[in-house]
């Protein structure tokens, strides 16, 4: 991890304690997780105790204290997607990646999560990879989508 890069992110937010969450979000989106050294640095520079940072970093689901894969796969299992066959999509992804929801594979390629509604029920079942929505999924289409990621 590059401490200078962390410093840049902190400086971008003018090193203000009130920007703590923004700083953490930026680090999270760049590294896909919040490494301990980064948190130490943020605490030191923003003058926020580590106990507080830890509380925030564990409170929001957007943050992760363990490394996440390069690609974040979200599968909607909300009611609409569920009745349209989300379970089969989930099974396909689990089989293709070898991981279950909440897990990351050893190559740090994928992290898998289920979500309870992505807000586009008409497109169900929905699969989201790195923020891009893939609607009206079938197991075959799901496998095809995953092939596009390295």
């Amino acid at each position, binding site marked *: 991890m590059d401490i200078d890069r962390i410093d840049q992110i902190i400086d971008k937010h003018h090193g203000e304690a009130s920007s703590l969450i923004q700083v953490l979000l930026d680090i999270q989106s760049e590294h896909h997780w919040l490494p301990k050294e980064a948190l130490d640095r943020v605490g030191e520079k923003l003058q926020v*105790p*580590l*106990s*507080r940072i*830890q*509380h925030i970093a*564990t*409170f929001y689901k957007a943050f992760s204290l363990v490394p996440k894969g390069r690609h974040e796969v979200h599968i909607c299992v909300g009611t609409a997607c569920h009745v349209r066959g989300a379970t089969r999509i989930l099974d396909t992804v689990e089989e293709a990646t070898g991981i279950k929801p909440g897990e990351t594979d050893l190559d740090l390629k994928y992290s898998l999560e289920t979500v309870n509604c992505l807000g586009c029920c008409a497109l169900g079942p929905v699969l989201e990879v790195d923020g891009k929505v893939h609607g009206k999924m079938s197991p075959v289409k799901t496998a095809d989508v995953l092939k596009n990621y390295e």
Partner: protein
Amino acid sequence: MSEILLQIDGKEVKATEGMTVLAAAQSAEIAIPTLCHHEKLEPFGACRICIVEVEVRGWTKLVVSCVYPVEENIIVRTRSEKIDRIRKTILELLLAHAPDSPELQALAGEYGADKDRFEKEASFCIHCGLCVRYCAEVTKKNAIGFVDRGIRKEISFIPEIASKECNDCKECFPLCPTSYLQAAFVLTQALAFPYPQQSYGDC
């Protein structure tokens, strides 16, 4: 600061602006049970045991007295059938987490709470935040904090800080209404930093 007159349990009480109902009651020697309140700490309002009835212009509402600021002419009732019932349920819920806490047991006796009403979920910590807030606000060491949220919320020591500060301080230990804080410390110590040399002498 302007003076505010209010009534608590039928007694006229003088308070100043910005004071909480709890503080006003205490100044008039009217007891309200508390679990998460501490005079040296900012009001927190976590345990809800200090709930009281407040009547404002004929309307009665339930408020948490340790965070509710006094207002002119309000009528406060610190005990009623309803309040006792609420406190009883709160205690029963807390007792599911920490059935052997002496503080909870004493209150349970007073409010007739049954410690076996809810299925036990022994997390031991009742999230009063006394340890976390004392460490942040009074000793300013920030060696302990909360992590996670909802039903998974728990306290967690920061090993780097705790290993340096806690052995000489431990001021938060007696504040904990359960014994969890001490247990959590011992566990952190066993897992994350070595036991101090001098303590071996006693065995």
